[in-house]
């Protein structure tokens, strides 16, 4: 019974949170208040873990909270719950797009959408830059020079040698550990 409710609650999160993983957080606090399956502190812990592990934040959140609620099976059910609405909605949109892809109207809409999409990703990138290079403390904001140096070196490397992105991530992690960034 709790599994059914778990699926349903996360189905709702998947259905109503628009715009990526962090948009799921208000819903998680709401579930916590309503059901008591997990605490607000668990959600805070989850954000920290989610930012330090691979994978989409929304999925990580569902798995973590599902596990706290009902073990492994809870983790699976909550994860399936959060991805189910997306699969349904996107499959419908894909079908519709297939039909209208040749239409001039759809082509024109995409002509405007594409640069907007690039701009939204760039704007999310600004936030990432803030977290990666700046130290925000009570005394003010300061730029972290070692991080900046690593960034410049990586940028040069990425442009000179076309390796798989994951390799650069591995290199950066090792450098981070060695130099205690």
């Amino acid at each position, binding site marked *: 019974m709790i599994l059914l409710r778990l699926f349903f609650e996360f189905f709702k999160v998947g259905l109503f949170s*628009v715009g990526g993983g962090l948009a799921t957080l208000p819903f998680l606090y709401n579930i916590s208040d309503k059901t008591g399956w997990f605490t607000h502190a668990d959600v805070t812990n989850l954000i920290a873990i989610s930012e330090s*592990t691979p994978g989409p934040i929304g999925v990580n959140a569902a798995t973590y909270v599902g596990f706290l609620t009902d073990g492994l099976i809870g983790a699976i059910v909550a994860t399936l719950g959060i991805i189910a609405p997306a699969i349904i909605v*996107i499959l419908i949109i894909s079908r519709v797009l297939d039909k209208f892809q040749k239409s001039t109207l759809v082509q024109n809409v995409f002509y405007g*959408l*594409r640069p907007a999409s690039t*701009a939204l990703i760039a704007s999310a990138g600004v936030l*990432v830059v803030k977290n990666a290079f700046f130290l925000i403390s009570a005394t003010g904001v300061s730029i972290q020079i070692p991080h900046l140096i690593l960034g410049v070196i990586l940028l040069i490397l990425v442009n000179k040698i076309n390796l798989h992105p994951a390799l650069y991530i591995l290199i950066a992690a090792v450098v981070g550990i060695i130099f205690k960034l």
Partner: protein
Amino acid sequence: MRTYLTLFLTFMRIGGLTFGGGYSMLPMMQRELVENHGWTTESELADYYAISQCTPGVIAINTATFIGYKVAGVFGGIFATLGVAFPSLVIITIIAAFLQNFADLAVVQHAFAGIRVCVCVLIFQAVRKLWKNTVVSTSTAIIFGVVFILSAAFSISPIILVTLAGISGVIIKTVQNKEVK
């Protein structure tokens, strides 16, 4: 069957190697989906990202469903989506079960300071690639600029921005076609 397996494994790699949510997944997707498999193009990726911003659910999941469907129909969509969620399920379950203080470990924090820098560089590269394919004229450059400022400086909701950009696309193209005639 083989295609389904390839989709599952490819998206599993993408899910397992991406740190920090949907946006950081872009460089990984460009590499695996555009360069390695030729399943999609840079401009199509931009389309999927734009639609994913305004539809419910996690961006990474939505994009996986889109591409899976395009390559191998409904089941392709489902396999790709399960693939991208699978690593989270495994990793987060292990952490929730054994390593509640995972994010507090010094070695993890140092590694992630490095990874965050790398993610910045990778997103920057990804945006540059996307820019070449989506900002193709003065009007698209203006759309990029306006959306970037409204999103980065004023945190206007992506749903509003994407809708306005789509409408602008239609208006711009209609006016241009009239001028040609």
